[in-house]
């Protein structure tokens, strides 16, 4: 294991997004905060409590999840894709950095950005809503696993994409529908059938519900299922990404 090499690439990944904080941290923080203000204050004022908590507080876990998922995904996908497009991939391939080293550096770097944006969003939300009751263990578990899975998905997208159009394919056609239909702004339990049952096939629903349980204490029957699902996704995405990196898929000719 090339520990110094891994640490160096991780440090480069983190410093890369911190070089442009307006784009990578501030911009997503502002958009998520705007969601919070618009949905929470303007629409929320006309909403009754959901599952016993005010609407403005109800949407906080979903918005934190949005910040984490989008930014973790964007960081690993764009970083790897830019490395390929600009030719600096050569610097990594020629170095003694194996699939494990690349995986750790790209994934942890993306998780740091996702968690940074997510936690800052949470901080802003707490300013408006106050500190709710917490299940710390569940909160940390869902924060970490959600950021990990979306970092992995971003890495896979970055590996696959060869054109700018392709790198935008996943956020637009995959992540946006799944997150907006994933119960971020509403309770899935309130949906009429068959949409409620259909929603349960959306993994984002279980991630948001898991965070809602952790951050607001709202108990759902599917929390354990959500945790198990995230663990399964963690294992599958890791195995696929490792195998692709090891084979040199779209990295080596």
């Amino acid at each position, binding site marked *: 294991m090339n520990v110094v*090499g891994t*640490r160096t*690439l991780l440090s480069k990944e983190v*410093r890369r997004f911190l070089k442009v904080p307006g784009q990578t941290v501030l911009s997503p923080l502002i958009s998520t905060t705007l969601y919070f203000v618009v949905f929470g204050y303007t629409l929320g004022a006309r909403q009754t409590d959901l599952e016993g908590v005010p609407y403005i507080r109800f949407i906080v876990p979903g918005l934190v999840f949005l910040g984490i998922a989008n930014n973790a995904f964007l960081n690993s996908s764009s970083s790897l894709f830019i490395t390929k497009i600009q030719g600096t991939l*050569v610097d990594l391939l*020629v170095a003694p950095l194996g699939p494990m080293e690349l995986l750790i550096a790209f994934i942890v770097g993306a998780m740091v950005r996702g968690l940074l944006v997510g936690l800052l969003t949470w901080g802003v939300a707490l300013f408006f809503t106050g500190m709710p009751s917490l299940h710390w263990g569940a909160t940390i578990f869902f924060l970490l696993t959600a950021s990990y899975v979306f970092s992995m998905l971003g890495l896979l997208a970055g590996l696959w994409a060869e054109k700018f159009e392709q790198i935008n394919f996943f956020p637009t056609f995959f992540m946006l529908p799944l997150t907006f239909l994933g119960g971020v702004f509403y309770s899935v339990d309130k949906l009429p059938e068959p949409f409620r049952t259909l929603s349960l096939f959306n993994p984002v629903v279980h991630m948001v519900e898991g965070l809602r349980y952790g951050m607001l204490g709202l108990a759902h029957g599917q929390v354990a299922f959500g945790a198990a699902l995230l663990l399964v996704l963690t294992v599958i995405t890791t195995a696929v990404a490792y195998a692709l990196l090891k084979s040199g898929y779209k990295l*080596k000719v």
Partner: protein
Amino acid sequence: MPETPVLDIAHLTKRFPKLVALEDVSLQIPQGEIFALLGPNGAGKTTLIGAVCGLVKKTSGTVRIFGHDLETDPLPPRYFVGLVPQEVNFDPFFTVRQVLAFQAGFFGKKADPARIEELLAALDLTSKGDTITRTLSGGMKRRLLIAKALVHRPKLVFLDEPTAGVDVELRRDLWSYVRKLKAEGTTVVLTTHYLEEAEELADRIGIIDKGRLLLVEEKSALMARLGERRLEVRFGQTQTALPAKLQEQGMVLSADQMGASFIERHGTAKAPALLGQLYAANMEIAEVSLKAAKLEDVLLRVLQNGGGAEVSA
């Protein structure tokens, strides 16, 4: 040649769907050698380097670096390999010094500012050390590529057209630096379109075309075997004919009968000997020129011959 060559390539083949980029290439390079790999565009030079440096997936064959088979043991030898790629790349976010520190780190080296400053000075980049790399000129970016390839003190360096697009001064500086590397025991594999560069630096020459390694030979032996020297003589007055002995040895009278020429090849008479015979024949000689053998001519001859020239590896 030492028992374990620094680089040992055996029957290396790389096939793309519509192209055979490398075909059964075998090559051994001992420690401390400067090896020049020459050939036209698309001959397979960069593919060969890529297969050794982990950028290209081989179809078959084996590559060993410092005795490690890259198939089963790909990472350990990479700590000691450096590559100057043909394509210029740059990182848009970081300065020259930061990029060099990162590159050293990728190779497991902890921060060594002294090494970075040494390379910046050697490549005339010191004043650009804190410049963001995207703002460097093309030549500066290429210098940075060279520094990146050397920052971790590799023992085997691949220079894939390292001086394309750089000024004459840097080219000379780089040649000096390559000689310094050789003196320190570093092995260098060089591809270049500046044949003067290969002529100046290389111990051995390899010529590759259409994926096949046509020839590998000591530079001096190759030049002696396939090089041509051209002797041109101008006479003080018109000559009706050359002495028969000179004609038999291949000297030709020019059309204006005011000069003669002779091409010295391996196995022919030597140009100075023929010149001596001209003087001995009391011919009035006004001007003499002897054009040295050029690697460029050797390369063209081998390529035109399509590998018909003998190959020794």
